[in-house]
């Protein structure tokens, strides 16, 4: 066997030291196939070599956790004998190179992670980041990426038959060359029917099922572990092509095969395809797996062992069946017109042995691929201020200007209605969607129990850029607050950590800070993170994206019609649970620099994210949950992007178009724009019938939470007054038009 030259190692993104380790572990030169196997298993995407050390800082255990990180998805107990499996994953790199297929296969991959566990997927959500749509030079490309990603998600999810029930979509210049496509999926099953990705039982057959293997997606995992340059478009063949129809058949066949009792273990072939599934299934069970590639169903002729092992063709599964019961499994796959063949067996030697027509082409101890994988404590630079601490002096603004500001914020990319996006998603199929996209959180009933699941995804790259730790804490708080607004108790979470090149010490610092901040907040709210995904190297030509940790929180509530976000009736009292400015007024101007107002109106970024007091936040959430669950509020909406003014406006955009007369009496004379648009967390705007007001205030009091009365809902106008002085007044319908039509106008522009 020829020695690995430095050049070949570099092509496989292996360092000199890593090549040396491979030689040491094998006690010889690797074969070409082995080199390929090491390169994908040791890629950042599969090995988490830069992030693993720090991920240990996240809480992963809790009373409801049935399965934490390490399997295909985390699992939590939802009671009545049922459980949910959920996870979020990124498909950033492929979605930039080929938006439609990149996003589509992102959905496909996460769905397989869910049904591999035995759960039937019942919901998908997504968190998307794109470059600015209005940018004179890059806008066209960004619009193309957005449209491609959205139709890719729609194509896959709609055909598969899983509702896409919500998410978020944010625009920043830093995502120009590096959009983020994070897809979350959740499935439901009986808690005693969880399947694991373990190749247990020496002598048991290893079965390949689903689509045939082709040359698509070879080295996809390595691609996702490098930054982009001018040549990136040449990587298009690395992007896989998805077939949602085949995946639907695979879902039904896998769930049915599991019912036979003949399935011992199962794992999907995702990143690093056959390589990853064989060595991981053996590794988890402490066994070995031996396969012969000649038996692998192939779509093309003349594929080399290297290509077959590294192919990332979609819609494939690897199963281990009980010896002698293969036929029961085959029968199910035949019923669904799918290939299923025995390609090998479980061995007792702890090795991955790959043969091609009986000739061994790779033989690697599983431990060498996983336990011995490189683990880096990458250097981290001291935290550096990303933007100036102080912003511009903002001159006082009159009513007309403030009304125009509100309109501009409502029409801005991050705030405007995303209906154009989510109407392309089937968000109702499976008839569980009690509250779909556009609500505070998505709420799905579990038909088998009296429980519903509430879900929220949140991340704020802008906050994290200014302070990764604070930003991550704020994301956790916002997710939990969204759940509180629909009356749900957070039960578990999954995270997707999108960062730049970890080999740069300043990026590594961002990563560590964000993980620690997220860990701290999750511990405080007692929500275990049961799995997730790290996506590094989100850079193009040396420009990293904002540090963008995205969190998905899953909560539980009793099945019933949830409290809406929108005002229902004029004349109700407005209660701002949490108060006008919770926490300290300290550095208010500096903390305004991360707001949507600073971004959209001033086009600047400075200072710090909003201040967050975790203890106060938790009390606000507990109070909000109690109020909502007692049926005391007619509507509930948390204040976030765009501050109180945008929040109140969003509450007006329900079918009834009810407005509000907001009366503010701050204890200090803050500037009007701060009062309206600052983004302090820990605030929920409620509309309350007067007979329920005492009970609402009592609950607020019990949790030592401020609850000023801030006016009333009204007919078709939204107005704000401070000590009786009018700040702004606008018609609900005109505001709604600006908010509702902005995205489509931008896309057709």
């Amino acid at each position, binding site marked *: 066997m020829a020695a690995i030259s430095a050049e070949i190692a570099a092509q496989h993104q292996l360092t000199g030291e890593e090549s040396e380790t491979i030689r040491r572990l094998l006690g010889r030169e690797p074969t070409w196939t082995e080199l390929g196997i090491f390169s994908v298993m040791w890629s950042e995407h599969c090995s988490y070599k830069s992030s693993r050390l720090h991920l240990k800082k996240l809480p992963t255990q809790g009373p409801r956790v049935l399965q934490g990180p390490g399997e295909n998805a985390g699992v939590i107990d939802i009671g009545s004998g049922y459980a949910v499996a959920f996870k979020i994953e990124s498909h950033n790199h492929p979605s930039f190179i080929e938006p439609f297929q990149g996003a589509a296969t992102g959905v496909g991959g996460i769905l397989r992670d869910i049904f591999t566990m035995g759960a039937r997927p019942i919901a998908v959500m997504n968190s998307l980041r794109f470059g600015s749509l209005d940018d004179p030079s890059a806008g066209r490309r960004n619009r193309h990426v957005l449209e491609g990603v959205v139709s890719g998600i729609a194509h896959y999810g709609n055909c*598969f038959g899983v509702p896409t029930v919500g998410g978020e979509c944010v625009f920043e210049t830093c995502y120009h060359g590096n959009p983020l496509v994070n897809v979350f999926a959740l499935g439901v099953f009986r808690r005693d029917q969880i399947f694991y990705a373990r190749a247990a039982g020496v002598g048991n057959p290893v079965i390949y099922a689903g689509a045939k293997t082709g040359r698509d997606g070879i080295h996809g995992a390595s691609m996702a572990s490098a930054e982009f340059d001018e040549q990136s478009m040449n990587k298009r063949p690395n992007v896989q092509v998805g077939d949602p129809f085949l995946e639907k058949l695979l879902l039904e066949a896998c769930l049915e095969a599991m019912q036979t009792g003949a399935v011992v273990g199962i794992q999907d072939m995702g990143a690093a395809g056959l390589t990853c599934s064989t060595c991981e299934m053996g590794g988890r069970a402490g066994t070995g797996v031996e396969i012969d590639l000649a038996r692998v169903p192939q779509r093309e002729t003349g594929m080399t062992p290297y290509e077959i092992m590294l192919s990332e063709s979609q819609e494939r599964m690897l199963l281990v069946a009980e010896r002698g019961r293969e036929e029961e499994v085959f029968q199910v796959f035949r019923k669904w017109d799918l290939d299923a063949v025995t390609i090998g067996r479980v061995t007792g030697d702890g090795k991955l042995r790959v043969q091609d027509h009986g000739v061994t082409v790779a033989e690697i101890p599983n431990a060498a691929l996983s336990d011995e994988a490189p683990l880096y404590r990458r250097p981290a630079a001291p935290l550096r201020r990303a933007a100036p601490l102080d912003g511009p002096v903002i001159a006082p603004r009159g009513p007309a200007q403030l009304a125009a500001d509100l309109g501009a914020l409502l029409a801005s990319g991050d705030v405007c209605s995303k209906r154009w996006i989510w109407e392309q998603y089937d968000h109702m199929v499976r*008839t569980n969607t009690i509250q779909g996209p556009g609500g505070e959180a998505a709420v799905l009933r579990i038909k088998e129990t009296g429980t519903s699941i509430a879900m929220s995804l949140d991340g704020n790259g802008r906050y994290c850029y200014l302070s990764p730790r604070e930003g991550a804490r704020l994301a956790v708080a916002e997710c939990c607050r969204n759940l509180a607004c629909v009356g749900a108790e957070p039960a578990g979470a999954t995270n997707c950590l999108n960062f730049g090149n970890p080999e740069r010490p300043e990026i590594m610092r961002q990563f560590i800070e964000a993980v620690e901040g997220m860990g701290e907040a999750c511990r405080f709210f007692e929500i275990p993170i049961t799995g997730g995904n790290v996506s590094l190297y989100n850079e193009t030509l040396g420009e990293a994206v904002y540090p963008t940790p995205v969190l998905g929180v899953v909560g539980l509530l009793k099945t019933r019609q949830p409290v809406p976000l929108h005002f229902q009736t004029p004349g109700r009292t407005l209660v701002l649970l949490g108060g006008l400015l919770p926490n300290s007024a300290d550095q208010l101007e500096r903390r305004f620099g991360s707001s949507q107002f600073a971004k959209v109106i001033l086009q600047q970024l400075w200072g710090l994210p909003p201040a967050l007091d975790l203890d106060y936040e938790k009390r606000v959430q507990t109070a909000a949950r109690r109020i909502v669950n007692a049926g005391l509020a007619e509507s509930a909406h948390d204040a976030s992007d765009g501050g109180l003014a945008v929040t109140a406006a969003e509450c007006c955009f329900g079918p009834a178009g009810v407005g509000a007369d907001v009366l503010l009496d701050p204890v200090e004379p803050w500037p009007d724009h701060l009062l309206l648009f600052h983004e302090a967390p820990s605030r929920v705007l409620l509309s309350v019938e007067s007979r329920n007001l005492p009970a609402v205030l009592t609950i607020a009091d019990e949790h030592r939470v401020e609850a000023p009365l801030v006016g009333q809902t009204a007919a078709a106008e939204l107005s704000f007054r401070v000590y009786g002085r009018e700040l702004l007044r606008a018609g609900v319908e005109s505001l709604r038009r600006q908010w509702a039509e902005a995205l489509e106008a931008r896309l057709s522009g």
Partner: protein
Amino acid sequence: MKLGVVVFPGSNCDHDAYYALSHNLGKRTVYLWHQTEDLEGCDAILLPGGFSYGDYLRTGAIARFSPVMRSVARFAASGGPVLGICNGFQILVEAGLLPGALMRNAGLKFICRTIHLRTETSDTPFTCELKPGAVLAVPIAHGDGCYHADPDTLRRLRQQDRIVFRYCTREGDADPRANPNGSLDDIAGILNEERNVLGMMPHPERASDPLMGSTDGLRVLASLACWLARDSRQESARLAGLVRHTL
């Protein structure tokens, strides 16, 4: 009374239809696998929504060749009621049980939203308990729902009172903005000449449970059950109650 929901590879509203019929309507319901020709003595057949055979080639184009469709055609010819929803409508059209064609939506995009339908006729098993003009709020979710037919066919559909549902405003008025997919004459659902086969793009099974925000779809399913139960006064009275009941 026994109702059958056909399952093609790629059907994905089969569970929803089953749940609406069995749980919300309270009728005995069975799944019928596409490979079978045995309709198991069902009194009505429902072809559910989804992407049968991935909608490859053309929506519904491959499903029509399934063995079960031979039986469905015979069942329909003998007067049995058949309801095709969304992809089911597309299959009925491809199978020649209903005239016309369903093309790509005018906006070229998949659309999922709740729309309004005006009931145009009561003279069907599916709307017998509804009043003409009744406006129903029912979701749509399709990429290929733009109904098209040649002028002769359209004339016959109108003359023979075979247009069962039209897209309309909340108030029940015709309005181009209320037509989500560009369908000819705002058509959302049509009958065969014998009036026992209905194809409709909107999803009544998604509006059959108070938790889903509308029970107008259940009024259609309950009408059908009422028609099937016309010999049993007690049961048809119960079902007629479901038709009248709205959220």
